[in-house]
């Protein structure tokens, strides 16, 4: 499953904020860290603030800070703000046989979607932060070796 750029950016940002909920992080710091335009990031952070996951802090040293419970907010709570999680196959009604193929394909794709939803819904930000810590302590995977 491939997440849209905004979704990935939202997840990176939320994890940055949740790692230290007391810290105000300027948007520019996150933009620089993940090499994205501050303008683009501002839209994402604004959406996260509307959902009550982060809140803006004004004044010197301002920016955003975490405003939710990391043991309650799941990856799904963040992802559904940016992704359309509706059916992936649209029926075109081009004859009985085509419709049957489309329905069969929709059933298979919906199986994958349901698994993805269950996975995202069961992983809280707290659990995700522990996974990140474990990855930091773990040796690079073969896939990571190839990438570097």
């Amino acid at each position: 499953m491939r997440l849209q750029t905004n979704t990935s950016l939202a997840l990176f940002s939320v994890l940055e904020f949740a790692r230290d909920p007391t810290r105000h992080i300027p948007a520019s710091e996150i933009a620089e860290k993940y090499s994205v335009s501050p303008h683009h990031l501002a839209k994402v952070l604004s959406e996260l603030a509307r959902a009550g996951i982060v809140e803006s802090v004004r004044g010197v040293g301002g920016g955003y800070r975490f405003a939710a419970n990391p043991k309650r907010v799941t990856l799904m709570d963040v992802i559904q703000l940016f992704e359309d999680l509706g059916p992936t196959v649209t029926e075109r009604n081009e004859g009985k046989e085509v419709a049957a193929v489309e329905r069969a394909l929709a059933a298979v794709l919906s199986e994958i979607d349901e698994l993805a939803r269950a996975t995202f819904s069961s992983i809280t930000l707290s659990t995700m932060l522990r996974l990140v810590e474990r990855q930091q302590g773990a040796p690079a995977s073969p896939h990571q070796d190839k990438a570097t």
Partner: protein
Amino acid sequence: MAKSSSGRKPEAARDAIAVRPAKRTDLDQVIAIDAAVTGIEKQDYWRTVFRRYSVPGEHQRQFLVAVAERRVVGYVIGEVRDWEFGSPPCGWVFAINVDPQVRLAGIGTRLLQTLAASFRCAGVRKMRTMLARENTLILSFFRSQGMMAGSLIPLEMDLEGP
């Protein structure tokens, strides 16, 4: 924040929790916790489970309860299964539940850790479980304990006909 029925905060009660093998006299409280969570009371089922899983000195099968102030507040059931689905021996967690009144106090974690230690004593190095994907509460609990999707995929079908 959840509190125990005695009004003590879970953090305060955590130290007083003991995990031990289930006794026959615990069954009514186990049945009550299961009924509170699932909405179905299963007397016969639990007596069968007790006979099968409460074997003194046995590491292969475990039926453990968490006790606080002489009251059963949770349970876990597990078993080491050999070469099922072509897999080397591993420990299966069949059931885990904590009294909804005393959740968020680390009782589930204590139960699972004790079961895992028992599995290690039995010589296995992998623990598995399976649950409905709609059960996000327990799924999140297992995830928080470090569990990830495994190598097995469950499949099922409806059997048609009379």
